[in-house]
């Protein structure tokens, strides 16, 4: 079968082709919005025109069958218009108010999970995991499914002090947004990689491999055209493995995940924040990682109970102090929590004032 003529460097279709008429007409002229429920809202333009949004959870990993189903729904209720959010949810864009409730009803019948708007848990930004990535030391999608099943109420209706952004990354490359999330899971190794020296000699650039190590644990071994790893210095990040596959970092028995908390990206009230280590390790327990799920619920509920309205997780923790975060959540404080990477200096307490 003859292929159509390829084109290069054309970029994506221009977005305006995909905007519903009411958006085109009121582009940049929105005045305010109102949250109507956990998963519906309306935006009102200067002109008085309105657009209703129904947001549904998505596992992100979508079959074409499901995409077609969503398309059909968009046709039926939205004149064919929809979008995805930056957190991978589906948003049905309703221009005709009379189609709103029917859409909601239909989605409900079809077991779509409507929610994620307002001061709630929204979808978990996550990554490839065992589904597709060679680097993964956990499965991202499975963790997300297990966590979101548990937190479903917080997605659909329960209200929190503010939005809580969750993320999961299946290795420290952190293709998710773990480093600045309210609560996040990141998979970690715990053992020094094993080196297949014969293949290192064949497959790897030694300088790149040496340079890939954050802690300078790798030294060249020019005699054998390979490298050696200083076991004292290696903290199992796996970056050497990324640039040189014969360095195998995987260890099913000792791989697992850490939980970090308190990050955010918006500049509201306080500056954007990095997430900080809350729990250094859980073993991988597929298919549902129950300990991880419980730990996240514990942190979330502690936040829900103690934070002031509009406080993000990190803002709450900084107000009460990390020592209080540990005592309120009952999480054990370990040597792993104390920074010994580059920025230790800024994380140590340099004050005589603290809580017990």
């Amino acid at each position, binding site marked *: 079968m003859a292929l159509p003529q390829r084109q290069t460097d054309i*970029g994506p279709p221009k977005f305006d082709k995909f905007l519903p008429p009411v958006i085109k007409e009121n582009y940049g002229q929105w005045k305010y919005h109102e949250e109507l429920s956990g998963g519906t809202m309306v*935006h009102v333009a200067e002109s008085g025109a309105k657009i209703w949004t129904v947001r549904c959870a998505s596992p992100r*990993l*979508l079959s074409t069958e499901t995409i077609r189903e969503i398309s059909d729904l968009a046709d039926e209720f939205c004149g*064919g218009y929809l*979008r995805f959010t930056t957190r991978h949810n589906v948003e049905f864009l309703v221009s005709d108010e009379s189609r709103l409730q029917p859409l909601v009803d239909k989605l409900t019948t079809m077991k779509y999970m409507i929610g994620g708007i307002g001061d709630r848990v929204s979808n978990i930004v996550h990554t490839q995991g065992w589904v597709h990535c060679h680097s993964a030391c956990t499965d991202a999608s499975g963790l997300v*499914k297990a966590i979101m099943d548990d937190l479903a109420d917080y997605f659909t209706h329960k209200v929190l002090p503010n939005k809580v952004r969750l993320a999961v990354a299946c290795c420290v490359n952190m293709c998710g947004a*773990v480093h600045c999330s309210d609560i996040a899971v990141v998979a970690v190794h715990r053992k020094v990689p094993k080196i297949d020296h014969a293949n290192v000699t064949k497959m790897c650039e030694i300088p*790149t491999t040496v340079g890939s190590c*954050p802690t300078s644990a790798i030294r060249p071994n020019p005699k054998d055209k390979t490298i050696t790893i200083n076991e004292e210095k290696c903290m199992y990040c796996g970056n050497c493995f990324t640039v040189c596959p014969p360095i195998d970092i995987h260890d099913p028995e000792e791989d697992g995940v850490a939980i970090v908390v308190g990050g955010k990206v918006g500049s509201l009230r306080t500056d954007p924040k990095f997430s900080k280590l809350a729990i250094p390790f859980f073993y991988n327990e597929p298919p549902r990682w129950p300990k991880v799920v419980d730990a996240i619920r514990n942190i979330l509920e502690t936040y829900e109970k103690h934070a002031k309205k509009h406080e993000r997780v990190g803002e709450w923790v900084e107000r009460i102090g990390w020592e209080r975060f540990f005592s309120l959540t009952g999480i054990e404080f370990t040597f792993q929590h104390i920074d010994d990477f580059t920025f230790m200096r800024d994380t140590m307490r340099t004050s005589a004032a603290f809580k017990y």
Partner: protein
Amino acid sequence: MSGKYKTPMLDELEKGPFPSFITEMKKATKISTTAEDALGQLEKSYQTKRGYWKHGGIVGVLGYGGGVIGRYSSLPDEFPGVAHYHTVRINQPSGFFYTSAALREICDIWDKYGSGMTNMHGSTGDLVLLGTTTDKLEAIFAEYSSRGWDLGSSGSAMRTPSCCVGPGRCEWACIDTLGLTYHLTQHFQDEMHRPAYPYKFKIKTAGCAVDCVAAIARADLSIIGTWKDDIQVDQAEVKAYADMGMNIQAEIAEMCPTECLKYDGGKITIDNKECTRCMHCIAKMTKALRPGKERGATILVGSKAPIVVGSLLSWVIVPFIKAEEPFEEVTELIENIIEWWDDNAKPRERIGELLEVKGMRPFLEAINVPPQPQQVREPRKDPFFFWTAADLEKK
């Protein structure tokens, strides 16, 4: 449906209210046998707690250096359907807007050549098609590109820019995030498709400091909308919020980080020159408060994930720049920024890492931006600093 492999562990993940990716994978088995083996291998991963993917070799389409991630099973004999299991990245439309027709077009082609699985969308923003083989790549590209869809990016290249919904549906957008992102995506097509940079380079654009696209944390170049003049206040709506029971004093005035917003029980007054435009008050009282009218963007540089030197958030470089069609000023600035990085970085060195090595001065001088207190949270502490010959001359 799925029959080739028993998947008792994965089946557990079809229970519960959140939509199941396993159900999605099973649906795909109607489209391709690839999907069967993908399930089989994944079940094995769940049983043994490890992945079975090998590093990608370099695969792609003619004339392009990126856009496809090569992926191979390390158990090709056991799971032949995923012996090759590459992903194809497609430049998404700005703001992730689609019509049903467009989505069906994407599905039709993918069903023909791929596994039937997608990621809507990847973390960077691309529309991600999951699982195909090397021999099909040219056909896939011809089919998509002939219909107006181009490949996304991978490798040491400009990555597909992405943005928040902005003026498309948000009352706070201070810049045209969708228009600017489309413009940049087009402008950098060559840099996107033919990796020639030291490493990856990502651009994300948010319409305001709320940053619904995490631009400040996940982009080498972060563009964030802002304004310079006064917040627009509608006192009638302030009263309406109070009447609805909002505790404006506690929720707004006391949470204003600069204490520049005061509430006297009736009206809100803002000492605008002390306002940092953090967006808190506006976000929580959207009917009463709105950004000012003199709008533009703040340009920040350098954020990334932790490898190698630890995660970085982006740093303010240009506090305020106009960003209106045809976006010339901001495009030129971005080009200068990238040029300096490209000239100076080692392989696999992101711009944030390079800046830390070189210091701000050579960078700012190269891109012709003066030092400004807005660039720093605080000045240096230790008195260890440099002087150029020129500095010493001007007494």
